[in-house]
């Protein structure tokens, strides 16, 4: 299952981005294959509906769950409709690597 994490930069040492729609990069992690992709956010500079467009783009990439420091209020209904899970981490000093470690550990615990 693919998870997209909003990141402030293009390495795993960067911190989680608090702005989902306008984040600099998305780190897409596939829990099943352990594969990582770092993609720049095409809607970063969008003035309108950046979050909604980012959600649709990520969903088309097969992402089933999104992680960010915060999400705009308009996003939730769309995600509920699409069956995508939101995970909100309100700790701005969390790095992408820390999040991936948590996800890996969870995956191993289950297997």
């Amino acid at each position, binding site marked *: 299952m693919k998870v997209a994490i909003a990141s402030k930069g293009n390495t795993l040492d960067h911190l989680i981005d608090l702005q989902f729609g306008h984040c600099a990069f998305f780190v897409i992690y596939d829990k099943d294959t352990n594969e990582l992709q770092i993609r720049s956010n095409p809607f970063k500079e969008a003035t309108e509906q950046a979050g909604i467009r980012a959600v649709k783009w990520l969903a088309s990439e097969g992402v089933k769950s999104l992680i960010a420091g915060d999400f705009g209020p308009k996003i939730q209904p769309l995600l*509920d409709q699409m069956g995508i899970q939101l995970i909100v981490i309100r700790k701005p000093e969390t790095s992408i690597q820390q999040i991936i470690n948590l996800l890996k550990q*969870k995956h191993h615990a289950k297997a």
Partner: protein
Amino acid sequence: MPAVKGFRPYGPELDKNAEAVVLHFEEYEAFKMCDYDNLNHLAAAKLMQVSRPTFTRIYASARNKIALSMAEGRPLEIEGGEVYFESNWLQCLLCGSYFNQPHPEEVAEDCPLCGHHQIQQIEQLDFTNLQYDSL
């Protein structure tokens, strides 16, 4: 589904250009179940497959909108389109993350981030008034 698509006010002082108030389908359902079918909130929440706090919020919003329409003489439109139910929100007691449950028929058992089993249901996550946890 509701029998009507909406309601129009009438009267001599009416502002013809008044913007319609849009009542979502779930708000109509919540209002009808409580005030026409006389169900209590818990029973109505179960029928709508939402948590009780979510139901209470939908119902309060329905009443506000109906009152707004009457008090300001604005048409009331019932949105018949997509039926959308808000998902429930939970919090992990170990890592502190918040997450929703987008499939209401599935029961959350552990945190999607760290896998911890101690999770609790919370009121709707407040997206507008951010309080960041300190590390």
